[in-house]
């Protein structure tokens, strides 16, 4: 019985299908964004999603977050079907998604305020996570006064303060400069390992996809399908040394690069014919 509970995936996707209308008109053409996606994510597992642009990875993440509903299929969190955003799933956004009129602390407090947490407890939680990401000197600053890296730290602190055990991250470090990105990847790995988070992380960066992941989900374009699931067999912790020189890293990265390239070439040929 105990094993059965442990085996329940944190997130399960069953037959997810999603189409989009190309315009507002009634008889507008539709495009298929996701075509029957079945996936499950184990607790504490770090999955990165990579694929060419337009492969439906952001749509998939939005469906997992219940920000969008699938046309067919269902999303299960801990075995329960969900149709609305919930406190166990927290999202980190590509463009940080901070409210420009709120200070750092108020941005981090937002999810707790919405859910009517007692003020003292909420503030204590928020401060703990602001410290965790090293922004305790900037609690009263506004987002526009912070660098991109700092803004995303606020985004991360906000997601963590909800206490969610599932983090949904949509290219969170895509808009951050290379050096800062490395530091933030390290921080993220450290936090996720300590707190046993289940993470689904979209990226377009091959190195990042391999470095962070327990497994990489490769998606293919038009219509969005899972092309391959690649386990990454690298020891943790993965920082403090040059992980890029590791044999497994080179293998997985090389394989991914090859597959992504093939996907692009196939796609171009299809478009030409």
């Amino acid at each position, binding site marked *: 019985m105990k094993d059965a509970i442990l085996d329940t995936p944190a997130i399960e996707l069953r037959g997810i299908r999603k189409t989009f209308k190309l315009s507002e008109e009634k008889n507008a053409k539709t495009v298929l964004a996701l075509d029957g996606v079945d996936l499950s994510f184990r607790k504490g597992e770090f999955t990165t999603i990579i694929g060419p642009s337009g492969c439906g990875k952001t749509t998939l993440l939005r469906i997992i977050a219940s*920000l969008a509903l699938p046309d067919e299929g269902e999303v299960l969190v801990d075995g329960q079907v969900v149709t609305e955003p919930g406190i166990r799933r927290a999202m980190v956004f590509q463009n940080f998604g901070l409210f420009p009129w709120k200070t750092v602390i108020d941005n981090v407090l937002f999810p707790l305020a919405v859910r009517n947490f007692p003020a003292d407890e909420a503030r204590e939680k928020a401060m703990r996570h602001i410290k965790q990401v090293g922004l305790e000197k900037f609690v009263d600053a506004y987002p526009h006064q912070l660098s991109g890296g700092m803004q995303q730290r606020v985004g991360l602190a906000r997601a963590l303060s909800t206490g969610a055990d599932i983090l949904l991250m949509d290219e969170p470090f895509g808009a951050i400069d290379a050096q800062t990105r490395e530091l933030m990847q390290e921080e993220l790995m450290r936090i996720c390992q300590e707190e046993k988070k289940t993470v689904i992380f979209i990226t377009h960066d091959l190195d990042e996809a391999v470095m962070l992941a327990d497994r990489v989900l490769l998606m293919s374009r038009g219509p969005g399908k899972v092309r391959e699931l690649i386990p990454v067999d690298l020891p943790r912790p993965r920082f403090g040394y040059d992980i890029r020189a590791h044999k497994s890293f080179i293998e997985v990265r090389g394989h991914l690069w090859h597959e992504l390239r093939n996907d692009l070439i196939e796609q171009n040929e299809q478009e030409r014919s």
Partner: protein
Amino acid sequence: MRTRSKKEIRRDQIVGVAVFLTVWEISAWFVGSKLVLPSVSQIAVAFWDLLISGELILALSESISLLIVGLAISTVIGFILGALVARSRTAYWMLNPYFSALFATPTIALVPLVLVWFGFGFPGRVIVVILAAVVPIMFSVASGLRDDPKDLVDVARSFGVKGELALLFRVRVRAALPVLMAGLRLAAGRGVVGMAVAETYLRLGGIGGLIKSYGSMFQTDYVFAAILPLSLLGITLVSLIGRLERRFQWS
């Protein structure tokens, strides 16, 4: 040009006022007619007289209450219609032409209709202020809410904000607030004009009535003494809203 410090700006303003008043005083002395151009000192005496007789305070309180009631109702109506126009294409194409027409029509041209329909009492006057002020509010609400902050709405939804109304007030209105305040500032300026029109063309009352009645008695010094608080009222209101506006900006 080098940016000026607050102290320097203050000094410039004081010098400007001093020069202006001196030129006025000298001109009045040359004109030599209290009817055409009363001197600064004569206006000051008239102002003092209006103040201690209580006439000014009474008129001012009448005007301010008219203005506040008018602007408050304008804000409510402007907000509802603006939100409607911003969120519905149908409402936009149905209502927008009328508002553009109302915006272009001088309020004073509508006074005879207001008189017939609503009388010359307080309700009629409030209607005139609303006709003057409602359109800028409605336009600013419409344009502020039309730029939908999609990303931030997603953020709010993902962290548990539910329902269109909650999203409207927690995200959309807050994001549009700088634009809304600019609209309110414009509306306040037009509202003061509407107020003066209502007070002089419906039935005499308030500051507008004071100006009109002293004008018809050719007491030009008293006319000036009454115009002064009217301008001050407008300036104070607009700068108050401007200050509020800056508080709601974030960059």
